[in-house]
């Protein structure tokens, strides 16, 4: 178990340009996340054991992370709000607590 003290420094972003870019990206992330939540049952049923990437409110699936991202980026190069998830092969009760 790695349980050593870790120093994390918190800092507020104050640059208006950086904030505007970050907010726009977050809006795209929000849309992609909401889209996944709306389609999650069908997506998870169909793609167990694979990696998904959501971009442009569209699904991209591959056997590995690089493949899913490549498909998403090719289809929606303008969307920086994409994100990935690995879908475990089995549906099991989960205990995380690393």
């Amino acid at each position, binding site marked *: *178990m790695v349980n050593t003290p*870790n120093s994390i*420094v918190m800092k507020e972003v104050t640059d208006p340009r950086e904030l505007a870019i970050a907010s726009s990206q977050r809006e795209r992330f929000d849309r992609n996340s909401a889209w996944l939540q709306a389609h999650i049952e069908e997506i*998870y049923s169909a793609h167990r054991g694979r990696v998904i990437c959501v971009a442009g409110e569209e699904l991209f699936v591959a056997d590995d992370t690089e493949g899913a991202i490549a498909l998403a980026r090719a289809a929606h190069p303008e969307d920086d709000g994409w994100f990935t998830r*690995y879908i475990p092969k089995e549906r099991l009760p989960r205990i995380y607590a*690393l």
Partner: protein
Amino acid sequence: MRFDGEWLLCDDWVARPVLRCEILAADRSWRAAEFLIDSGADRTVFSANVLKSLRLEAGPPAASVGGVGGTADVVTVGTELRFTRADSVKVLFRGDYLACTSPKSLDMSVLGRDILEMFALIVDRRSNTVCLLGGRHRYAITENS
């Protein structure tokens, strides 16, 4: 200071408390990511697929992390997380984070005590609330008569 998370459906269609944020990648772009809020985890840990998407140079392998299923191999990466406050201000958390190297070890990144203990944490399924409170924000527990 207040950061709102949400209850998101996971692979088993169970809603779990998640904080969405961005992580600084090797090319200095920000990558959207989801973190399971895990008050039992000692450290914040990136899943393997998030680690791959960041393309960060990993430090030497950290020993390992342990959980119910045994241990998992991890590496250390130095980067920043970017959270969005309830008032839309962005806040960065710079530090060394752990990352799993096998996708089977951790299907979703976890936000652990290294960050959570900087705040008061509310995880309340009944009221559909997930939030981190700090600074001038406090919570109150009341009893109805």
